[in-house]
């Protein structure tokens, strides 16, 4: 009991350090519990939505399949349930034509029971079979300030139609709706989902009378997706299978799962770092305390206190902190978890699930803290175990001085001043601290260089390369399907505002090499195309030829092909759709957004056995930058009711969206750089404090000899700069490795994150780390100035 009182008073006497440690522990545990509970809430809510709304396990895209055939699919081996849908993208008619707004119409079979990917109706009324009334996804509904009963004018089948808003809902398939897989953001103002009765859809799109172009299915327990896929491919071949893919590749599911994963990572990453720093502080504080209280330990031992009792007394400092910090952090974390979950629901619109007080979560929080701080505390005060009472009552033996390995090089030894030698020897004298400072600074430097490269090179390149370097048109006119190109080309070229129009053919193909297969878009371009530039790694133009394919790097990797290899091509656009043709790979080019193959358009037409055709046109306006937006609007106006056109997109609008998205994401980069800086700062500051505390006698002696505070401090700073220089030399390449690993893990078939790091980013990592070292040293210098020579030297060591 008395020892408890001693502990409380000791802690009170060094309140600053213990408080800093406690605050860190609380922050760490708040981050841990808030993120862990929020991610668990999201996962549970996702599972509930998936289960209740029968989220499919497989997705097939087809050209067209008769409605009655769905029943046959349902009876197939391995298939538990199947639902056919007609899915069509339409443009929303906008009187001003200022922006392209698209709706994806997804048919609902109102008769079907237990439909897959069902809609959870949040508000509104049931739909009637033949009425053009739909349920909108809630993001689009809210982003556009719509009301129930309001009508949206859409252009479908070449005509403007009025779609009545009958309700608002959410579907597991569109928790995070994206118009194309290659997009990296959602813009709920410009793209949304409308669930419309199948009958009404068939009335809109007469080409699809009682036919579906999408099939979703669930599997029987134990069924293997790949096997079912093979069977389905055979079964559905005659209906033009474009792609069959499992749930893991479904865009919305992929994004949602990734997000939950990211929050989970945050629940581990931040607390681990914070607890490591807290552990280090308690280690240092206790080690110092045990040294200072050597005499007291001797007296306790002389009184008959056992080693373990004394050990437990000192350990109790860290255990008390752990218990209080763990409990406080746990409670605050639990309290903050639900508001955090709310923020995430705001973004993902999942049905809300919350977690109340959980005793096990609180216990986990306390146990983690006790584990980490107990471990650190034990190492801090284990010296108690070794001391005998007699030893404890005597001053400690002077530290042993040794020459450093580097001093064996005579030239270096001669170059060093006495202070330089001291610094060098201190490095090898305190190996564990040297290692701590080295690893800490190395990681900080790597983190800053990595983030810097990500923010200034990789992300901008990833986001803007496509719309600044590759696509240089002013507008892209997408046709509603493949059309003869010459007449449209002539017409577009003849428009007064248009200075250049170039055709583009986007053909879905399946490329195979040995057992590897990939479904991609093969893009046919004019060899002299100016509005779509294929560039090699050095930014030089690559001309798409008529005799072979240009593959994106990722596609080439996935197919395991190199230049000169031959791939097999299948396509519904082939004159004989059952045919397979062989094509050579003539070049491999980088591509960050999407995964495509390229070819000269004439060569592509010849390969497919088709006449000259295009699926879209790229247009450049007369007069350069400035009035494009108005001209895009004029173009939209001109072709508003044409049934040949699916949409007109402005490149600048895409670019603006990217910029907007990028600006929103910017704070995360700032946060990471800040963490790197704070980390370096904390490491050097803590290390300086430890050095000051351990060597205050030496430092005071130097002051007495007549050295200024700055000269004395230079011994410590020289030591830190030495470690710092070596650490950044190791940290910069580590940053490159982290960027490579990050790019690798982040890249999918749809996106490839560039992983190059320029010298500028490496320098930024080095400079920012050095700046953090310099700044923290200024703080420590103030402590040296306040060092009382008289008090230090008078005290017995």
């Amino acid at each position, binding site marked *: 009991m008395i020892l408890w009182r001693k502990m409380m008073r000791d802690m009170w006497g060094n309140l600053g350090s213990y408080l800093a440690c406690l605050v860190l522990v609380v922050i760490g545990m708040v981050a841990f519990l808030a993120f862990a509970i929020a991610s668990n809430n999201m996962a549970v809510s996702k599972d509930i939505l998936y289960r209740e709304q029968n989220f499919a396990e497989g997705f097939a895209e087809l050209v067209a399949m008769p409605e009655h055939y769905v029943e046959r699919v349902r009876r197939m081996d391995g298939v538990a349930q199947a639902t056919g849908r007609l899915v069509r993208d339409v443009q929303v008619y906008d009187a001003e034509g200022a922006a392209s707004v698209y709706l994806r119409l997804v048919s609902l079979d109102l008769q079907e029971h237990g439909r897959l990917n069902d809609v959870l109706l949040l508000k509104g009324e049931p739909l009637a079979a033949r009425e053009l009334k739909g349920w909108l996804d809630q993001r689009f509904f809210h982003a556009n300030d719509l009301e129930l009963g309001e009508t949206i004018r859409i252009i479908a089948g070449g005509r403007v139609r009025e779609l009545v808003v009958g309700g608002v809902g959410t579907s597991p398939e569109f928790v995070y709706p994206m118009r194309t897989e290659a997009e990296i953001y959602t813009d709920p103002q410009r793209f949304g989902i409308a669930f419309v009765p199948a009958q009404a859809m068939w009335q809109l799109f007469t080409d699809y009378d009682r036919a579906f172009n999408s099939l979703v299915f669930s599997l029987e327990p134990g069924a293997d997706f790949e096997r079912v896929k093979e069977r389905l491919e055979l079964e559905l071949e005659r209906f033009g299978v474009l792609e069959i893919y499992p749930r893991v590749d479904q865009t919305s599911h992929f994004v949602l799962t990734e997000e939950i994963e990211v929050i989970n990572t945050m629940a581990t990453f931040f607390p681990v770092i914070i607890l490591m720093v807290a552990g280090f502080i308690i280690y240092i504080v206790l080690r110092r305390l045990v040294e200072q209280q050597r005499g007291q330990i001797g007296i306790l031992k002389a009184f008959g206190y056992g080693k373990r009792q004394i050990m437990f007394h000192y350990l109790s400092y860290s255990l008390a902190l752990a218990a209080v910090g763990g409990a406080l952090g746990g409670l605050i974390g639990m309290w903050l978890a639900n508001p955090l979950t709310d923020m995430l629901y705001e973004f993902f619109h999942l049905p809300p699930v919350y977690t109340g007080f959980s005793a096990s979560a609180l216990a986990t929080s306390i146990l983690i803290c006790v584990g980490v701080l107990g471990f650190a505390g034990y190492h801090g005060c284990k010296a108690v175990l070794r001391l005998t009472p007699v030893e404890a009552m005597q001053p400690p033996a002077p*530290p042993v001085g040794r020459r450093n390995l580097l001093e064996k090089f005579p030239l270096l030894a001669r170059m060093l001043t*006495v202070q330089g030698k001291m610094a060098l020897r201190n490095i090898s004298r305190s190996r564990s601290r040297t290692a701590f400072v080295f690893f800490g600074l190395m990681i900080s430097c790597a983190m800053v260089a990595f983030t810097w490269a990500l923010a200034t090179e990789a992300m901008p390149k990833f986001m803007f390369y496509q719309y600044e370097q590759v696509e240089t048109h002013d507008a892209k006119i997408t046709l509603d399907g493949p059309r003869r190109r010459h007449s449209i080309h002539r017409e577009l070229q003849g428009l007064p505002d248009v200075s250049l129009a170039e055709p583009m053919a986007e053909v879905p193909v399946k490329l195979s090499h040995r057992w590897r297969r990939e479904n991609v878009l093969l893009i046919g371009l004019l060899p002299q195309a100016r509005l779509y530039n294929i560039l090699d790694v050095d930014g030089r133009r690559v001309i798409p030829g008529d005799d072979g394919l240009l593959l994106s790097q990722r596609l080439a990797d996935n197919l395991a092909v190199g230049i000169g290899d031959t791939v097999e091509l299948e396509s519904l656009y082939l004159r004989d759709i059952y045919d397979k043709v062989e094509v050579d790979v003539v070049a491999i080019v980088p591509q960050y957004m999407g995964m495509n193959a390229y070819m000269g358009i004439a060569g592509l037409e010849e390969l497919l056995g088709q006449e000259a055709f295009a699926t879209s046109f790229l247009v450049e306006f007369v007069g350069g930058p400035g009035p494009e937006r108005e001209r895009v609007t004029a173009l939209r106006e001109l072709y508003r009711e044409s049934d040949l056109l699916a949409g007109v997109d402005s490149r600048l609008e895409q670019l603006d969206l990217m910029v907007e998205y990028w600006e929103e994401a910017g704070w995360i980069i700032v946060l990471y750089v800040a963490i790197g800086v704070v980390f370096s700062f904390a490491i050097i500051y803590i290390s300086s404090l430890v050095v000051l505390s351990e060597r205050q006698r030496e430092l005071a*002696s130097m002051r*007495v000899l*007549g050295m200024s505070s700055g000269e004395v401090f230079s011994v410590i700073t020289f030591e830190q700069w030495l470690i710092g220089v070596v650490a950044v030399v190791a940290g910069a390449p580590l940053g490159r490795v982290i960027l490579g690993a990050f790019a690798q893990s982040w890249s999918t078939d749809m996106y490839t994150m560039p992983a190059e790091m320029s010298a500028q980013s490496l320098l930024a990592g080095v400079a920012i780390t050095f700046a953090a070292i310099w700044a923290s040293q200024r703080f420590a210098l103030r402590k040296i100035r306040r060092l009382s020579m008289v008090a230090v030297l*008078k005290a*017995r060591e």
Partner: protein
Amino acid sequence: MASSILVGTGLKKRYRMGEVDVYALKGVDFTLYKQELVVVLGESGSGKTTLVNLLGGMDQATEGELMFGETAIHQCDEDELTEYRRNQVGFIFQFYNLMPNLTARENISLGAQIASDPLDVQDLLEQVGLADRADHFPSQLSGGEQQRVAIARALAKNPRLLLADEPTGALDLPTGRHILALLRRFRDEYSKAVVLITHNTNISQLADRIIYLKDGRIEWVHENDSPIAPEEVNW
């Protein structure tokens, strides 16, 4: 009479100890002459160390004046005090306070390299009899050897004033005599003024002047006309 190098008048020093003010010095007048060896005697807590700290520029008086030639030490700022300690004062402590990770030679060089007119390090090593132990670290030296390094380090700066606070306090008699002999030799050979603090009255017999402090004041001063040789000192 030799010329004075340090003159203190009405020196007072007040410390704040917890919630009370404690006067360690209550008004001390003190003059130190060139090449003089002064022993300051007194019980624990009499103010000896405080006085030496003031003389050495480690601390500043709360009241009173301290003049080093034309320099008013009591008015110096931090940088001027550093400059004073660097060039004019050499300190020697009871517990040596050597840098544990510097060899004997390097410890002495540490003093020499910052001074404007240092003495030769090798010469000093020989004079303190440690030429053959020059590359040993403090942990490899005995207490007496460590104190000899400390004296050489203090002297290396070639200061006008050597201040020694209980320099023999941790040493046995023969070693202590050796240290005292060194101090006196250096006073003679290099014309230094030496202030030696001790509570050991026997040591005071080798001084030119003995000052006895009690309760922060000078109780008495004794001019010693016949100082004994260090070899004759006993305790």
